[in-house]
């Protein structure tokens, strides 16, 4: 009976996935991972989940607003016990897909000393946002996120201050350059 129940639940949740907007290509790293998170949620699952998000809870209300225009959320996060489990080629195979014309990189940093990189890409079509990709790499962790659909970037940026994360104060405005 338990196996049948599992099949029913898996069957319901495993309806055909709308495509992620790019392939993560990280399956070969899963066997090496000490810890992995794999989330794949299509539009109808998101709409269904939204009904159970509590408007009175600050974090849940924030998420409910964010996912209202979203058609899919895909997250893969792998942690490793030691450095060197993933290579630059693993990241490059994802970046190559995000060099397609509809994608633009809007944020990114690289720390050579810490061996960290992180980038945020936005997909647009007819001047409207149709997707977001986040690629974050540390020596022992690799995370890829694809949010498909009309993502409100302000709401996404505003996630700091929720989930126990510190609220980041707005950066001071850059000083105007002196005119020579």
């Amino acid at each position, binding site marked *: *009976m*338990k*196996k*049948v*129940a*599992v099949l*029913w*639940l*898996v069957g*319901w*949740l*495993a309806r055909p996935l709308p495509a992620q907007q790019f392939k993560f290509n990280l399956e070969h790293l*899963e*066997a090496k991972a000490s*810890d*992995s*998170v*794999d*989330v794949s*949620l299509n539009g109808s*699952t*998101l709409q*269904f*989940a*939204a*009904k*159970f*998000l509590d408007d009175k809870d600050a*974090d*849940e209300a924030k*998420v409910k607003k*964010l*996912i209202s225009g979203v058609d899919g*959320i895909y*997250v893969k*996060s792998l942690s490793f016990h030691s450095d060197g489990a993933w290579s630059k080629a693993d990241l490059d195979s994802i970046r190559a897909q995000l060099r397609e014309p509809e994608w633009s990189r809007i*944020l*990114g*940093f690289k*720390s050579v000393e810490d061996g960290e990189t*992180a980038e*945020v890409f936005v997909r647009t079509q007819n001047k409207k946002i149709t997707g977001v990709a*986040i690629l*974050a790499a540390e020596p022992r962790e690799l*995370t890829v*996120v694809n*949010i498909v659909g009309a993502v409100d970037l302000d709401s*996404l*940026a505003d*996630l*700091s201050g*929720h*989930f*126990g*994360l*510190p609220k*980041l104060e707005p*950066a*001071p405005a*850059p000083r105007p350059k002196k005119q020579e």
Partner: protein
Amino acid sequence: MDWFEKELSRALERKDPPRGFAERVTARAAGQGGAPVETRSGRPRAFGLPRWLPVAAALLLIAGSGEQAWRRHQGMVAKQQVMLAMRITAGKLNHIQTHMREARQ
């Protein structure tokens, strides 16, 4: 142990975490209940379902709770997955924003 090692032991005595730590952790763990957990084989379970979930689902059916309870149960699973995804996304964005601010300073 000489006096120095005794001092080291005293200096490194266990300290209690801040009040409410256990409650906060247990609450967060409950929130990540839908997260994929590695099986003994090392592969994440499909769709990150906690082990108790299929049994709970079967029990609901047997108890004759009906479709409403089943849907509520499915909804909670889906909600946990959404919150997990957003928690990870928020963490990464926060990390990026922190670095960007430090770079500007």
